């Protein structure tokens, strides 16, 4: 007797992001086994990320190297200047990278951190004399070359710099991993006299020993990230009198460039995943506060294999926190609009991303540093190069893992993806050999007719179409198994793609 087809509807598949921690069979279909080059779009759907458009037209000074730092200088007078670092140089500009490296200043590494403070921009890198720029001198110069600098010494050539509480703070020195120096009040070039000073926290580490990695200012606290512990001081507005507020053992920070402020929390990458400082302080317990529980093992694996460096950025406009493992060309995108039941952010992965620097501008633009120079996070190609969007569901058992499932139809609903070729894939019983069926999305152009019917300034002129292509297909499927994995791949090359839903029609067979 013929059986009725059972419809299994995957609405907004993967809108909870990747989950590689839970058992595939027990997973919520809202998770994804793979969500590459994807983001959670404004409607909660999984969608292709944006690409980057290169702004730089002249990167002669950069050569073939990648930008590893981007920072926009801004002073009270409204002067702005974009600085970047790469190829052992300091650059300015976005279209043409102008070498701003001070004469006679030799650079052999590009791991700069740049901060704005009181009408100057400061650049710190371990073992290098800090650089400073202001609009008055209009030149990047070594700090000691500045007319009014004091106390600039090799002992304070830190790798981490923080502008907070009216001072510059620096730490992570070549031969000193437990001392923090702070500058005089409101003067980042005065490192002696005034109210400048230092604190050695070697006796404060809760685990007896640690090394300072990063600094952060949050909630009137000075947060000192060690590799495996965190020390928090309160009253940092008066550093000489600031007192220990809290210590957290077992949770540290991997790299200074993973620390980002989201307004309510300080996000940083620990050895076991992404964490929120606010929650860590609140709970004082490492396991509960993880923001990346769904990909913990993946992150640990990446951490263990990362030989280059990390970059991160928080974009309130895009609602994500990007964490790049540059050496492994992998970026994780954490959607910060909300958390899952376990407190984790929804996360997607951007493999093959060659992003080496980020900068969130005041106008909401997100600058990305690459070997091409400075790019802007926009469009749907990586500087004209397509990238592949992938979605794979977890293993689906349709609520009865013991019975055989025979897929008959796969009906994806896609939004966008004009002219894109979409590959629908499915496999049974945890197999890695996927059956593939492809289709090409039609090329729908809005019928504008260049008629302004409802107002002189109606842009775009969309009298007859909404300007967004929705595509529903019904694809035949073959084979059977107790569990099914459904996937979708498509190269993103100029158009957005969102996966609205996938409807599966299957016959439920005998019990195996």
């Amino acid at each position, binding site marked *: 007797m013929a059986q009725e087809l059972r419809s299994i509807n995957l609405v907004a598949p993967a809108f909870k992001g990747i989950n590689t921690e839970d058992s595939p069979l027990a997973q919520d279909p809202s998770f994804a086994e793979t969500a590459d080059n994807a983001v959670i779009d404004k409607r909660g759907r999984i969608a292709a990320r944006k690409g980057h458009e290169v702004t730089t037209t002249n990167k002669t000074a950069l050569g073939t190297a990648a930008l590893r730092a981007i920072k926009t200088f801004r002073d009270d007078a409204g002067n702005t200047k974009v600085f970047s670092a790469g190829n052992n140089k300091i650059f300015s500009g976005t279209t043409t990278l102008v070498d701003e490296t001070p004469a006679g200043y030799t650079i052999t590494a590009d791991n700069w951190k740049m901060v704005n403070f009181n009408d100057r921009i400061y650049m710190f890198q371990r073992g290098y004399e800090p650089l400073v720029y202001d609009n008055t001198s209009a030149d990047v110069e070594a700090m000691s070359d500045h007319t009014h600098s004091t106390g600039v010494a090799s002992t304070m050539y830190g790798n981490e710099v923080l502008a907070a509480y009216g001072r510059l703070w620096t730490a992570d020195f070549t031969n000193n991993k437990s001392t923090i120096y702070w500058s005089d009040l409101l003067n980042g070039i005065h490192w002696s*006299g005034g109210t*400048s000073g*230092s604190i*050695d926290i070697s006796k404060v580490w809760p685990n007896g020993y640690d090394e300072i990695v990063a600094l952060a200012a949050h909630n009137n606290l000075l947060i000192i990230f060690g590799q495996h512990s965190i020390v928090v001081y309160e009253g940092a507005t008066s550093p*000489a*009198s600031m007192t*220990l507020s809290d210590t957290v053992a077992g949770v540290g920070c991997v790299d200074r460039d993973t620390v980002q402020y989201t307004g309510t929390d300080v996000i940083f990458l620990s050895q076991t995943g992404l964490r929120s400082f606010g929650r860590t302080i609140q709970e004082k317990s490492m396991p509960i506060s993880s923001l990346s529980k769904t990909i913990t093992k993946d992150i640990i694996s990446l951490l263990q294999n990362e030989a280059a460096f990390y970059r991160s950025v928080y974009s309130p406009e895009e609602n994500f926190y990007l964490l790049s493992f540059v050496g492994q060309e992998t970026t994780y995108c954490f959607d910060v609009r909300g958390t899952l039941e376990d407190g984790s952010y929804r996360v997607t992965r951007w493999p093959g991303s060659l992003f080496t620097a980020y900068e969130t501008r005041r106008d909401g633009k997100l600058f990305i540093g690459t070997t091409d120079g400075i790019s802007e996070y926009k469009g749907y190609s990586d500087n004209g190069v397509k990238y592949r969007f992938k979605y794979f569901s977890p293993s689906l058992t349709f609520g009865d893992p013991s019975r055989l499932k025979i897929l008959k139809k796969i009906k994806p609903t896609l939004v966008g993806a004009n002219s894109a070729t979409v590959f629908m894939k499915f496999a049974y019983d945890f197999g890695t050999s996927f059956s593939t069926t492809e289709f090409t999305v039609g090329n729908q152009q809005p019928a504008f007719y260049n008629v302004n019917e409802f107002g002189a300034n109606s842009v775009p002129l969309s009298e007859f179409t909404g300007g967004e292509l929705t595509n529903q297909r019904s694809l035949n499927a073959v084979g059977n198994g107790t569990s099914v994995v459904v996937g979708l791949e498509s190269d993103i090359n100029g158009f957005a793609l969102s996966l609205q839903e996938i409807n599966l029609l299957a016959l439920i067979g005998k019990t195996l």
Partner: protein
Amino acid sequence: MSNQNITIGLNTPEFSGNTPYGNTSYLRDLADLGGVLQNIGVNTEQPSGGFFGDILGGLRDIGSAVSPAIPAIAGSLLTSEAYDRLSDVGRQAEASAMGLAERGLAESQFKPFTVTSTTGSQLGTRVTPSGAVETTMGLSPQEQAMQQQLLGGAGDFFGQAQMPTVAREQAIFDRMRAAQRPEEERQRLALEERLAGQGRLGVSSAAYGGATPEQLAMATAQEEGRNRAMLGAMQQAQAEQAQQAGLGQQFLGAGYVPQAQLLAATQPAQRLAELQQQAQLYGTGLFGETAMSGIESRLLAEQARANLLGGVGSNILAGMFTPQVNQRTGDVTSAGGLGDLGGLFGGVSEGLGTIIRGIGGIFD
């Protein structure tokens, strides 16, 4: 110093008689002088006019013998005798006055005396051969020992007061710091614990001298304590120096107390000596005045005798050349003149013998 009964003994043998002024030489001399004067007046015990009666009798005899020529001779002789006698009386008065002055000088000389206190100390006085008055003081052995001890102590204290105070200041400072250091260490440890609890052990702030405000405050307080200790040590050393000087002063003063007490003990004796001296001087003056009164009286008497003799001689001479009128009969006898000198010598010699004996009795 407690008052002690002081027995004052004056070695004034002249005062050892039964009467305060008894047995003094000048009194004896006064007695002698009185005797002389009495001798002078002895003849007054004789019936009034006996003496002169002899003389007049003699003269009458002479006059009878030589009358009427003899009276002229006798008058001349008597006048000459009066003249000579006045010269002798002046010389004798001068000699007596000089003797009296020398005696008064000897009697008014300082009489040495010695004072011995109940503690055995002595004050002695003597007149040196050169005439100077020398005073000697002697303490008892106990007092000498005490004086030596006190003066030695004074020397020690003064010596200590003159020593530099640096070493003493350092010693006092060290002792004060030794007393302060444990509490400072406790405070330091407490601060260290607080800073460690606050995670601030490693804080170094340029505004606080490379430390925390608390550390700077503690260091400041400790330095203030050190400074106070240093100043206190200086003040204490100086106070001790002043104390040493004061003690030296006290010891020095006390060292002279036995001597001062000895001098104080001699005050009554000195007053007595002054009284003695005053009495001596008074007696000497009284003696001199009395003696001079006697001399003057004698001079007056002798002067009167001489005048008398001169008057007698003058009268005799005047009678010899004046006619005698018998009032009863009215007969006038002419002056004898120098015609009757033949019977003169027998009667004159007898009369002169009588006169000379009478005068000689005056100076016996």
